[in-house]
């Protein structure tokens, strides 16, 4: 246990790690924005009674919820390029896998949120002469989104953790950069400890935020 910790070698490679952190954040933000946006569409399709909308969206959601996300990323990186009409690099493969995964999970959040709104709200919208789209966008979604916020924040936390999987296909995010630095400097202990701490520092405040938000909602009832 007489190991001499040496964090100087980490500081010497600060630049590499900062690039990694930046790439991690880019990947996370892109997938979160696209995931939540398209998740709304798939979620509404899942809620629909029209079989042409319901079945494809359900199949999509089940496939992406019931396979490991690393399998999805590897599939898009190694398998998909064979039939893909466009070029796939590590970033697009990771972004595709993580975005589709986020769409599937957030679709279920939207669906549950929409379902939780009382039927009377739909009827009231209809009574005012609103169309389905108007009821959805002006009455139902604004009310349900507030209830979905903690679930979305949990999704963002999960997504942040999942971006580290992109290192497996050599996308230069934080985890990958750490692997590079640790092989150059022979400092796996300091390097992987630092990476874990960086992730913790980013993610933990969000988990606290979710808890506080949930407590506040519980008080309000």
């Amino acid at each position, binding site marked *: 246990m007489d*190991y001499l910790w040496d964090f100087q070698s980490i500081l010497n490679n600060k630049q590499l790690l900062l690039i990694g952190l930046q790439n991690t954040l880019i990947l996370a933000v892109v997938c979160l924005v696209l995931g939540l946006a398209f998740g709304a569409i798939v979620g509404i399709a899942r809620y629909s009674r029209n079989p042409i909308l319901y079945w494809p969206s359900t199949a999509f959601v089940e496939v992406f919820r*019931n*396979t490991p996300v*690393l*399998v999805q990323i590897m599939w898009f990186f190694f398998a998909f390029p064979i039939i893909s009409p466009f070029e796939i690099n590590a970033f697009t493969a990771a972004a595709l896998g993580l975005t589709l995964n986020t769409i599937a999970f957030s679709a279920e959040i939207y669906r549950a949120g929409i379902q939780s709104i009382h039927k009377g709200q739909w009827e009231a919208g209809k009574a005012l002469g609103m169309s389905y789209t108007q009821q959805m966008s002006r009455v139902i979604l604004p009310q349900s989104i507030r209830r979905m916020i903690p679930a979305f924040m949990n999704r963002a936390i999960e997504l942040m953790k999942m971006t580290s999987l992109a290192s497996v296909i050599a996308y230069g995010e934080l985890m990958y950069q750490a692997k590079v630095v640790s092989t150059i400097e022979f400092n796996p202990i300091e390097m992987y400890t630092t990476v874990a701490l960086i992730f913790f520092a980013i*993610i933990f405040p969000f988990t606290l935020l979710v808890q506080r938000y949930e407590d506040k909602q519980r008080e309000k009832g």
Partner: protein
Amino acid sequence: MGYDWDFWVVFREFGLLMHGLINTLKVTGLSLTFGVPLGLCLALLRLYGNWPIRVPVGIIIEFFRATPPIAQLFWFFFALPILIGVEIDPFKASVLTFSLQSSAFFAEVFRGGIVSIDKGQWEAAKAIGMNRNKSLKRIILPQAVKRMIPAFLERAIELMKTTTLVGTISYADLLYEANTIAQSTYRSLEVFTVAAGIYFVIIFVCSIGVRQLERRMARTGETTAH
């Protein structure tokens, strides 16, 4: 799109995939075996320990929940052996990581279950002369565990999905074997699709089972909102 699919290559190597699947199940099963009891211990310490115990246990739980599993796995595989001067093979590192990682999540499931039990149950146990340990063991935990079964199963499914990471430290799980076959046959599209299909069948069947159980428990009013 004129791609010639050839699944025959994959079926010729099916034995290798099955070998990988068994390793996947082995890591998942062992991690569950260690993770669940450890999770219960952590939950009890976090709930009933005095603060010099409660605070560090809380930090450990939060740390494992708020860092990516792959960072944990790399730490236990690449960093820990140097730190303690003991060699750790990929299998042991995987089981160690996922036991600890899942125990942090199981601890929160246990805690949620215990907290959800009505105060009256504690008072009733006290009224018939039980001390805290006895009431916990005979009254509270049996009720809490029953309620938490769906949440446990969901975590177990999550764990199985997370074990795909063990390939990164070259433990030959299903995904790792798929990758090996893909590299030797150049049929990555078929191999990865079949591997994804195998994961899907297992996980989907389990999820449906959990949903059925939840529905049945909701009917009999044995479930908690979580």
